[in-house]
Structures are given as C-alpha cells and as structure tokens.
C-alpha cells in the first residue's frame, strides 16, 4: 500500500511540475532531521546545589546553534533551556512571538504542524510545562532520581518569523547515554545531567509541512 501511495504521490508531483510551466519549480529539498547534541542547560558545577537558576541557554532552530546570552533581548533565539524548564521566546519569557505545543505521536509521522493549539509563556505557566509527567519528561525513574524523556512527545514551535519547527528530546544527560544500564543507574558513574540531546526539523519556508 505504502509504495503505491508513494508512486502515486511522486507521479502527481511530476505531473503538476510538468503542467505548471509558469511557476518556477521550487527546489523541494527534503527536510532532514538534525540532531543537537549535549546542549548545556545551565549544568551545575560539582558541589552542593547552588539553586542558582535560571540561566537559560538560548537556541535557534534556524541556525541550529546556541545563541549568545547578549542576544537574549532579540528575536534571534527560539527556545531557552535551563535545568528541566524550557522557555520560548515570547510572552513573559522573551521579546519575540514564539509559541509552542506538545503533541503525542511519532516525530516522523508529524508531517504537518497543527494550525492551532499553540501557546506562549505566561505568568501562569510556560508553553512547554515543567514537572514530572506533565510535559516532556518523567523524574525519579524507579527511585533512581533519573530524568527520562517520555517517548512519543513531539514539541512543535512557531517561531518569531512564523516558521515552524518540531523537536523531540532524546536525552537529558551528557553524551546521550543509555539510561537503562547499571552504569547509568549507579549514581557514581552516571554522566552529568542538564545536557539536552534533541532531534529537530526546521521548515524555513513558512509552510506547516515537515
């Protein structure tokens, strides 16, 4: 069924491309998922917890890179990460108009961003809620004080420019480790936390298609 569908789709595309002579055939470069590795989210120095939050690491999906702190009052960044909390550049968190929502599903199956349902950060709460089991993670996995992303949670972002991005958080620990190994469970050999690894797709053309 699937290959058939694909063939149909491709022929349809070819057909439309062949017919619409007037339109400049747009380069439909397939969007490839990118991985952001070990984005530090205000990691703690060794020693007793200082409680000094929030110092957000800012990230831009367009550039796929960390944005300098000095740009925090600009619209150059989309999301900010600090510990377990994620802010968007909008509402009470930033000067932009970024909005987000969490969806349940598979990253690859989300081929179109929803039209509605986005929210920005408000005084009542962030668009991407914090708290174990509320949003994207569970804490205290089996009494081992581990933060684990809930599988099947995809966060969709509408950026300041009105472009869409989707991302799935894969890991909260440095080096994207397997969290089921005995080595990881043992507190003494566990890599430090507050290092996000996530998979993302950024659609620069303003459409909702991924």
């Amino acid at each position: 069924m699937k290959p058939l569908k694909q063939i149909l789709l491709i022929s349809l595309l070819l057909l439309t491309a062949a017919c619409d002579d007037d339109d400049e055939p747009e380069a439909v470069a397939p969007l490839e998922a990118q991985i952001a590795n070990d984005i530090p989210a205000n990691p703690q120095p060794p020693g007793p917890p200082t409680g000094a939050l929030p110092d957000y690491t800012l990230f831009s999906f367009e550039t796929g890179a960390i944005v300098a702190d000095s740009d925090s009052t600009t619209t150059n960044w989309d999301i900010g990460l600090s510990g377990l909390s994620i802010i968007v550049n909008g509402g009470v968190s930033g000067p932009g108009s970024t909005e987000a929502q969490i969806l349940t599903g598979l990253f690859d199956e989300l081929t179109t961003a929803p039209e509605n349902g986005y929210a920005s950060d408000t005084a009542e709460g962030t668009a991407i809620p914090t708290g174990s089991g509320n949003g994207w993670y569970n804490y205290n996995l089996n009494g081992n004080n581990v933060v684990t992303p809930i599988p099947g949670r995809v966060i969709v972002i509408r950026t300041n420019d009105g472009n869409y991005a989707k991302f799935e958080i894969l890991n909260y620990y440095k080096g994207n480790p397997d969290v089921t190994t005995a080595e990881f469970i043992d507190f003494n050999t566990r890599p430090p936390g507050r290092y996000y690894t996530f998979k993302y797709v950024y659609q620069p053309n303003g459409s909702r298609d991924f």
Partner: protein
Amino acid sequence: MKKKLVSLLVCIFIVSQGFSQLSTGTIKGRILDMNKNPLPGAVIKLENSVTGTVSDANGHYMLDKVPTGKQKVFFNFLGFQEVGKKILVQQGINELSDVILNEEIRSLDQVVITATRTETNIENVPVPLQIISKEEIRNIGATRLNEVLLEQTGLLIDSDHGTGLQIQGFAADYALILIDGEPVIGRTAGTLDLSRIAVNNIERIEIVKGPTSSLYGSEAMAGVVNIITKRNLSPFSVGLQSRYRTNNTLDFNSSVASLGDKLGVEMNLDYLRSDGYDLTPNTISNTAPEFNAYTIQPKISYKFNQRTNLAVSARYYHEEQENRQEINDEQESFIVNDQGLRKDYAINTDLTHTFNARHKLRLRNYFTKYETESELNYQNDGTLYNFNFFDQSFNRTELQYDAAISATQSATLGAGFFVEEVEATRYENVNQFTASYAFAQYQWAPLEKFNIVAGARFDQHSEYSSQLSPKLAVQYRFNEKLKVQASAGAGYKAPDFRQLLLNFTNPVVGYSVFGSSVVREGIRRLEAEGRVDQILIDPDNINEIKAESSWSFNLGWEWNPLAGKDFRVKANLFRNNINDLIETAPVVRKTNGQNVFSYFNFDEVITQGVEAEMHYRPLNNLSFSLGYQYLDTRDVEMLNELKNGKIFASGENGTFRLDRSDYRGLFNRSRHSGNIKVNYHLKKLNMDFSVRGIYTGEFGVADTNVNGVYDAYDLTADDNLLWNGSIQKYFRKGLALEAGVRNMLDRRNQHVPTMPGRILFGGFSYQFSKQ
C-alpha cells in the same frame, strides 16, 4: 425419649423382618485403622436395610438376624473412607476377616471459620478456600508466614517494602491478614510484611480468595488470610523447638500450656535472629539486614459455666534491624548507619455466650498498636542524618450474633465500631479516625445438594465515602464426584494513611504531595505564602476521596473422578474489576515550577485468570500435588491508550509506536506460577520426606522507557524455580529432628530481594502432652 422411641421402632422392624424371613445368620468381626488399632464406635450396616450395629471398645462387632444369601455390608467411621464388602451369609455364625478403614484426607469433620465467620463444614463453603495444616507448615520447615504462603498455589510473594502477599493478581495492599479473626495492622507502602508473623504457634491457616469485604470490610478485596493459633486441649503440655540456618539464623521457640476445668493458660515465646544476606555485594547496604526479633503470645481462657467463656490473648512483637546505606544527595554521596525498630502488640478480649444450641452471642474488643522507628546516622562522625517514626493504633469493639433458624437456615448479624490513630514524621499532628459498621449474613441449604450464602456489610468512615459490600455465593453438588461453586461480591479498600494525610515536600527537587484530608489546608497555606503559580484543580472542587472498590466473580469446581481413590482436581476461574484506584495527580503549580500532587480516584484495573490444583495420594504414605495459576492483568485506560496508538517507546533506532502485543499488563505480576510437591512417609523409620518445586514466572520490574505501561521493552525479572526439601525423623516421647534445604539450586535474583541463595537448616523439636 426420641432416641428410645427410634430404637424401639428399629427393634420392632428388625424383629418383624426376622419373623418374615426365617433363615438368618449372625456376622461378626473386627474393625481396625491403618495402624491396626481397633476402631470403637464404627457403624456396620447392611445394604438396603436398616439393620446395623456399632463396634465395641476393641473394634469387635456382631450383627444378628442377617438374612442368609448374598449381602453387602458397609463399614463406616467418621473421618474414614467407607468400605463395602460382599459376603455370603449362612445360618449360624459367620466370622469375617478384619476390616481396615483408611483415614479420609478430606476429613469430614474439618470445620473452618474464615469464609462465613461461623464454624462451617469445609464441604459447605461455597467460595475458594485453601487450608494449610500445621503438618504442612512443619514439613516446610518454615519459621515465618512468607515461607509458608510462598509454596501455595495462586499466592505470590511480593518483595516491595517487605514480603507482601499477592492474591488473584492484586497488589499486597489488598489482602487482609488476620490472627484468630482480628486484623494485623502496620503496612509500609501498602505491604504488610509477612515476615513479622512467626508460624510455630499455628494450628492452621485459612485462606479465602475473592472479596470478603461483606464480612471483614476494608482490605479484604483480594482475599483474607486467617491464622488460627494453636489451641491447647491437654491438661498440661510443653513444647520446645530450635532450628539453625545458613546466614547464622537461629530460631528458638518454646510453649507451655495448662488447661483446667475452668481456667486455661498458655504461653508461647519465639526468638529469631539472623546476620542477613547480600545479593548485591557491590552496593553498601545488605539486601536483608541483620536482625533479631522476638514474639510473645500469652493466652488465658476462663469458662464461667457451660455457656459462657472468656478468652484474653495478647501478642507482642519486637524487632531490631541494622544496616548501612549509601545516600546520594544531588552531588555528593556518603554512608549512613541505619538502625530500625519495629514492634507491634495486640490484646484481644473475647466473650462468648451460648444461650442454647440455636443462639450464640460474641462480644470482642481488640486493641493493637504498630510502631516503627528508623534512625540514620553519618558513618564518619555518628551524628544524626535522619529520623523517622510511624505510630498507628487501632481499637475495635464488635458484637456478633449467630442464630440457627432451622436445620437448613442460619443467620449471622454483627456490628462494631473502631477508632484509628496515626502519628508519623510525614503527617501533621495526631490524626484520629472513627468508623462504624454492621453486617449480616444468611446461610440456606434448600436442598441437600445446594446451598447459598448471602451477606452484606455497610461501613461508615470519618474520612472517606461510606461503602456497601454485598456478596452472594452458591454451591451445587452434582454427586459425590463433582461440586461446583460460584460467587459474586464487592470488595473495597480504604485510602491508606499516606493518601489521606501525607504532607511532604521533596527537599531536593521541590515538589510536594498532600493527602486528600489535608490538601485544601495545604494549598491555602501555600497561597498565603505566595508560592502558588497556577491552580490546576480548585481545592474547593476536590471531591471527597472514595475507597477503592471492586466487583469480583469466582467460578470453581472440585472433581473427584476415581471412587475410592484420593485423586482430586480443583479449579477456579476468577475475574476482578477494580475501580477508583487511587493515584496521584497535580493540583497546583508552584512558583518554583514544581507541582503539588494529591490523591484522586481514577484508575481502573482488571485482573483475571484461572487457578488449578491436582492432588493424588496413590498410597497412604505417598502424595503428589500440582498447582498452577494463569494470571492476566491490565490497566484499562492505559490499554486503551495503547490500542489507540498513543503509547510509544524509544530504542536504539529512535521512538516507535507500541501495539497490543507489546502490552504486558501490570508490573510485578507473574503471568504463570505453579508448584509441584511430593510427600513421603517412611513407616519403618518413622520419617517424613518432602520435596517442593515453586515456580514464579517472569514479571515486570521497572518502566525503563517511562511510557507509563509495562511493555515488552521494559526491565523484566527472570522466572524462578525454587527447589525446597526437608526430612523429619520422629522418635518416641515427642522428640523429632529435622534437616532441609531451601533453594537447593542456589538461585539468586536481584529483583527478588526476599529470596536468599541456598539455605541449609537443621533442628529439633520436643513436645510433651499429659493426657
């Protein structure tokens, strides 16, 4: 007067028969038991006739006026298998060879109490029932209750916060444990640790499966385990027992009892100590800590007259534990010494008055208290790191009236009230709850083959919604070979103290949990302190918490296909629909971004399966049994989510969707479990041999992919086959020696911390009774 009349009639009948049939003879002989001891009082009867007699003190009998020719004679004695003999009767004296009667395994006189709260013949109990005799406990070589229950079909031992009991797929929270009909209190995270209960002083254990809240109220949702302590019947008796096991485990037990015409006094002492053991040597703490524990159980009974009896019994348990722990506080780790103290005591006063054979009244008061203390001190300087305590008390007064309405109908009515008190580190103040209840039960046998038990109980509690628990059970005996029973009933479990009272804020992460009785107050306090960011559920709209409740159905049969052979097959199908399971949900988001949780009723769980047992005793001194349980459990909402494609897991190749076949049910439940047992008595040497294999199938340990369900990709504990064996040698004068091995193959499983490796044991016992 009646008796005389009957015998007169019988005589007339016999005489008249004698007249009508002139040709008669006399038969005589002797009736013995398996050990060739005479059986006095055995009944000898002719087939299709009222002619009969009874054996004398030496087992001799003589039956006159037996018509000559072919006859069939039946020999009967209560608790023994009937024997029928075809004979050819001639005129004069016919001397028959000795008749030997074998004891019936299912002795007809076995009376049980737990299923109906009244003494009922086991044959008439229409619900799934299991009896563990003191002989079986002795053969197991057990010192604690968990070791006994582990070997029973359909009972699984849980290793979460002590050794708990799973019945029909329910977690340990849902089994009610009674000692002589009174509840044992003191649960940790829902588990009542069975290793607190010594088994040396037990007459038998009765286990009723299926909801019994109609008689016992809360906690009797999965079933009831009632421990019947030994009752002394001889004027004077003394018992001593000692046993030594691997891990430097020593058990010592002594009892002394005296019974007079009016006054009976008993005392039982038990001491158990162990070095503990460690299944994970790379960690600092021992899997099982070093401990010593003693139990004191005095009992006094006084008979005012033939009708009025008073019994006062008490129990005191004291246990000290020592262990070490590694504590991980965010960035640093250190070692603390862990000292634990656990004690419970109970006083049970029981006054019974029998008005006449038809009316009986029983007034009971039961007071019990459970206390724990845990002290953690830094290993390096001995200063205090943490101290926790938990004190719970329970006082109950209950009146029960039993009435025999007619030969086929009886009723039981009861009412009572109790006061519970709890004070603990994570609860504020001393909390007191009160409750009252009433129950009624009606037993009716409209036909010899058919009987019904119907009952209901109403509970009213100060902290949660009232509860009505009805139950109906029926039994039909098609013939001597087959009986079928069916029952439907409601069960419930009260919210526990955590769910009502917890007031806890995690010092490291900052989330809070409030029990349902304190959540409003807690949120107001946070609001006043300006720490509330967003209210998710308005505290004024939080409904009163309900008890968790269930509806359960049991359908069982017992089949005894081979006449004259002790071969039995028993099976029971069960289904439990559990509603309003209590889970946490966020109510408030705090300004620190963390949530305040409280407890709500929302989950729905189903457990179902079948339990089957086969017993076969080919010889008097050899018996086999096989047991098996198939168990299917499911969380209804989670399973629907999964069917709707909303549950995912992540693996090496990223996140993927789970389907129905990936669902494994509830965590910590074995789909398959069973046992095989062989017992042999070697007559020549007066020795017992016993070998038992206990199988527990694999079960889910942890939701490693945190998707909220137990699926094929989660952490699973391997299945286990334990082989246990023991030998007893009996000497004259009440002396016995025992030796045995538990876990012969030295199986270890880090997910079953209550199962040590191979354990060798040996011991002796001495019992003296003055007749």
